[in-house]
């Protein structure tokens, strides 16, 4: 059983999606329990898998027993790097699924069964992107994740959601085509699709000077950049996530970009290798500069927004800049910081989007100005939102602080001062953004001129505002996410240790040994 876990993680939600598609047409209420059960099973297997990988080293799994020698097998490989991302994806998927309980019937009435089918397929796709070790299989899974997300976004009742989904389809398809073209070049040049085989072939046959490898790298990178909304290819993101139903944006915003960044790291380090990417190409300056622009532009654009979700979307653009920049610093701390940030940012974004969804339902409006008095009306939601916000700003002990800690260290050590300044700038902008919200939530949009003295004797007897919290099904995942944000921060050392099992301390590569599947554990 245990050796089949890599595939069980994927198969459970996949089959659940099929069952839901069949059974859902009879009774759409099947969807929710089925989804939660499937994702709980996935999360449990992902956790077991991660523990296993930490203890005993990476696992290779060949689908259907068609191993490497036959040349046609699809390989799944789990090391600590994607093990962590896998757990993150499963956890975010599960938390959002719990959140969806009452929201989905409200947001997409009559299409609940369709929603859960797509949702499960999306989770399958995202987890597949994480575990696969086959470049073409990766394309297929990217497409599964993308196609389902187009559907999920378009499901919302707003017209703009449909339009945004169409825009996203165009951009997303262009991205996928770029990626596929790149893989085509790689296949022509190396004759294999297995990631580590490609790398091995490039090395043994001395292909690293070959123009087709260069073209492949450029095409794949651009394709992945579109998927992750890296500046300036982010145009599809803000509207798509803003006008999507709140459950959809709560799963897509944390995961789609983050998993794409993981894919970028995997392609860079496993397929092409750090020597090729960082030394032979030597594009670090350029791409870190682009990332710097992404961070600054995302932050400034976020400042200009009046809608909460849209503001968060531009922050995602900035955060993508953090991670892309961190990887391209070509510094160990930057790389590890980026991987850590994939995980922490997933939960930060989830926290903020869950809260934004709750606010939207309560107020029927996306506008920040409408949030007046939220601290008294919904103290728990607001407190959880505050935790997410503080993490975005980078206040210890939340995980956001420690991402910055590693990323800035990487920036200083590699001499990319512009990146360091951009990170600090973005922290400051985030502080302005979120304290603007806190201010509205604390004071209301129009604070009173006079003193806020009450008539009672200060016993808080006659509370003028009644606490009216969100429903438990939406509140529980939110509070859990806020707790995870703090725990991730406090125990960041452990996470970093786990990442360093795959990316050894001081290095910026994933040694081939750990990918061969039989390396001795550290």
């Amino acid at each position: 059983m245990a050796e089949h876990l890599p595939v069980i993680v994927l198969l459970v939600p996949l089959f659940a999606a099929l069952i839901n598609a069949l059974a859902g047409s009879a009774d759409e209420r099947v969807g929710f329990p089925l989804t939660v059960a499937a994702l709980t099973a996935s999360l449990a297997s992902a956790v077991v898998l991660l523990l296993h990988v930490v203890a005993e080293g990476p696992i290779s799994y060949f689908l259907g027993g068609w191993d490497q020698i036959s040349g046609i097998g699809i390989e799944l490989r789990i090391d600590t790097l994607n093990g962590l991302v896998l757990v993150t994806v499963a956890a975010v998927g599960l938390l959002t699924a719990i959140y969806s309980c009452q929201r989905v019937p409200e947001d997409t009435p009559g299409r609940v069964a369709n929603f859960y089918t797509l949702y499960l397929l999306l989770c399958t796709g995202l987890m597949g992107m994480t575990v696969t070790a086959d470049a073409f299989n990766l394309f297929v899974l990217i497409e599964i994740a993308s196609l389902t997300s187009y559907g999920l976004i378009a499901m919302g009742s707003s017209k703009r959601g449909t339009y945004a989904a169409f825009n996203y389809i165009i951009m997303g398809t262009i991205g996928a085509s770029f990626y596929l073209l790149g893989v085509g070049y790689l296949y022509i040049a190396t004759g294999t699709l297995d990631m580590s085989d490609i790398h091995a072939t490039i090395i043994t046959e001395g292909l690293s000077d070959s123009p087709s490898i260069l073209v492949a790298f450029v095409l794949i990178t651009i394709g992945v950049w579109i998927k992750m909304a890296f500046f300036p290819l982010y145009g599809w993101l803000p509207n798509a996530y803003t006008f999507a139903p709140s459950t959809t944006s709560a799963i897509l915003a944390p995961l789609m970009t983050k998993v794409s960044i993981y894919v970028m790291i995997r392609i860079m380090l496993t397929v092409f290798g750090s020597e090729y990417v960082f030394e032979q190409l030597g594009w670090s300056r350029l791409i870190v500069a682009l990332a710097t622009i992404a961070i600054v532009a995302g932050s400034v654009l976020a400042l200009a927004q009046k809608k909460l979700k849209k503001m968060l979307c531009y922050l995602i653009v900035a955060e993508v800049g953090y991670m892309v920049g961190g990887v391209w610093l070509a510094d160990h701390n930057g790389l590890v910081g980026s991987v850590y940030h994939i995980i922490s940012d997933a939960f930060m974004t989830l926290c903020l989007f869950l809260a934004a969804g709750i606010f939207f339902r309560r107020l029927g409006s996306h506008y920040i100005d409408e949030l007046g008095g939220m601290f008294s009306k919904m103290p728990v939601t607001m407190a959880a939102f505050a935790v997410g916000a503080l993490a975005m700003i980078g206040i210890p002990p939340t995980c956001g602080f420690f991402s910055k800690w590693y990323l800035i260290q990487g920036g200083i050590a590699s001499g990319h001062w512009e990146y360091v300044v951009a990170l600090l700038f973005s922290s400051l902008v985030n502080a302005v953004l979120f304290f603007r919200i806190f201010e509205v939530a604390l004071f209301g949009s129009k604070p009173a001129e006079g003193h806020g003295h009450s008539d009672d004797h200060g016993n808080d007897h006659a509370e003028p505002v009644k606490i009216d919290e969100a429903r438990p099904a939406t509140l529980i995942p939110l509070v859990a996410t806020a707790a995870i944000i703090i725990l991730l921060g406090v125990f960041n050392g452990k996470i970093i240790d786990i990442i360093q099992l795959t990316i050894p301390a001081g290095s910026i590569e994933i040694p081939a040994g750990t990918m061969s599947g039989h390396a001795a554990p550290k």
Partner: protein
Amino acid sequence: MENEVHSWVPLLAFLTPLLAVLPILIFRRETMLRDGSTIAAGIVMLCLVVSMLGDVSAGKIITCHLFDLVPNVPLEFRIDGLGMLFALVASFLWIPTSFYGFGYMRGLKEHSQTRFFAFFAVSLSATIGVAFAGNLLTMYLFYEMLSLATFPLVTHHQDKEARSGGRTYLSHLLGTSVAFALPALIWCYVAGGGADGMNFSDGGFLSADLGPTGGVVLLLLFAFGFSKAGMMPFHSWLPGAMVAPTPVSALLHAVAVVKVGVFCVLRVVTGVFGVDLLGRGEGGLDIGITLAWVAAFTVIVSSLIALTQDNLKRRLAFSTIGQLSYIILGAALATKLSVSGSMLHIAAHAVGKITLFYCAGAIFVATGKKYISQMSGLGKTMPFTFGAFFLGSLSVIGLPPTFGLISKFHLVMGTAEAGEKVLLVVFLVSTILNAAYFLPIVFRAFFPKNDQLPDGETAPKFSWSAVREAPLMCVVPLALTAFLSVFLFFGSGFLRELVATFVDPLFPK
């Protein structure tokens, strides 16, 4: 090290006020129980802190190592003379301030008192966290916690003024700490502190490889980054924060928050750079003097601004800015006497300034007056308050028979020891300015001229029947702290002993 003792007491002392939040929230409708839990927490915390005093005075260092925050840098408490001194001051003054707070908040029938006392307790917890922090990262963590926990207190009134005050407050404190202190922190970590855990134990972990330019930049990043210390040009949050209810101004903006700022600077000077690196001697980069001049500038300019303020609390705030820079000045000069003076001044200024704020609040509760120009003749109706105000101002000016004299004496001698003659003049001028902005207040309260009084009134004659003091819960604390600043003039031995345990190892002769 052989003189280190492991103990969980620091953790308990830190957790006590934090846990007190629970009963405060639970008893939000039972005023007596709620306020009782604040007092109980205060007493427990003070007892815990005092229980460690003996060991620390004997030169031992109490550590409490929790777990690694980032590789090689643990979350740890480590209590030496400096931390002990600050913790003692903060936890002791919390108790009278709580009583004062009950009197003040009830006297004015303030709203949301539960929230107020809950965040007050969290702030104290963060303050103790900074005082006990064993390394730079731990210190930063609690520093930020304090900024956030005090925000709801500053903006308590939730009106327009509170909103703009709160904006200035947070943008300055959070902005500078993220923009300056955080990169400085990481710079330290990268520049060689990393492996040593960034702790303060061996009197500075940075080396002279930093170079004079790098050293100055890093030092100023820290000094401006910890802008709770109120150095110009990042001082304006403090006058802005005066919109808070007076108990907040008293404990937080005369003691806890602002002292956390200077405390952090002192830590950086003694524990990160090391006094040798700051000085001119062998192996020194001669960077302290730059900081000293920035501080001296702040001392003079803030005193001049204080002279022009008519709002009493704002005048006190600008006075605080100047006094904080005394402490930074002493730290920057990095001689034995000046560092001792800085440490003593943390305590001396705390006791003196808290008295002055209590008085300002008591005057407001009793008469609703905020402006100095309205206070002529009030000494006749509020003799205790203005008597205490007089003693408090003596201490802040540095005149006998108050504790302020002792700390200022150390600072001045330290400046002489460093051979900075011009800075001696700064001390002289600022002392005159201090007297000029405090003593007239007392004078016109007791001996008003007729043209200072509202039309048609004459200076009242003193009689006991005319006394209209603030509620007893306001007056007793201010009398207590006024007495304390006189008492410490005669009985500061235990504090000086504490200071010596910290300073002596820094300056081995």
